[in-house]
């Protein structure tokens, strides 16, 4: 399931939802937070392209299920105004197998970073995309 929302998410709640009775062997969770990026600003704003974002995230989720034997997957991305220490993004995976859960979780956040139409503005400046993020996404897409 994927959700784009302004309000915060609850890691404990999302963790519980990933568990499937009797079959879950492992859960891997990634949670991204706002670091202290500047002496001059303490908040950032996240803009997105509604409708396209949902479509891209759903595709990322579907692709992960195709690549690995997964049980549940969850992506949450916040938009709007966020402050330092706020949670931004949640990616969670449950599986019978821990390796599949690790790979799928890392895959989803790596691809999200380069394909999902979100843009961050820190203080008055739009954040620049990182080459390193493109490199890790390319590594997934060529294997």
């Amino acid at each position, binding site marked *: 399931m994927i959700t784009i929302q302004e309000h915060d998410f609850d890691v404990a709640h999302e963790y519980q939802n990933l568990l499937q009775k009797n079959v879950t062997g492992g859960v891997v969770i990634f949670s991204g937070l706002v670091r202290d990026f500047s002496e001059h600003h303490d908040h950032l704003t996240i803009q997105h392209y509604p*409708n396209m974002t949902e479509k891209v995230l759903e595709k990322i989720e579907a692709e992960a299920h195709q690549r690995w034997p997964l049980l549940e997957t969850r992506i949450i991305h916040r938009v709007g105004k966020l402050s330092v220490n706020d949670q931004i993004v949640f990616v969670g995976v449950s599986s019978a197998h821990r390796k599949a859960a690790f790979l799928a979780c890392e895959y989803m956040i790596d691809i999200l*970073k380069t*394909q*999902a*139409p979100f*843009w961050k*503005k820190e203080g008055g400046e739009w954040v620049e995309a990182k080459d390193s993020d493109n490199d890790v996404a390319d590594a997934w897409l060529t294997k």
Partner: protein
Amino acid sequence: MKNEINILYFASLAESLNRDDEKFELKSESLNSLQLKKELATRGQEWEVLLDPSTRSSVNLVIANDDTEIKPGDEVAFFPPVTGG
């Protein structure tokens, strides 16, 4: 209008072009993404950013390349590289 498309601009592009969206009338039945960018770039120097290789575009919510066909009623978007997550 029958030959209209909807164009959306996001993030730094929306700021530098000073708009979030616009209706745009196609002069032909269809054209590709590169032709649209070239036509918009004739509006002035600040519009040449659309031809910058780093600028991304989508047609009907799917990432587009220069060859992607655009038809009346389509939703086209232009935006800088994404920075979510």
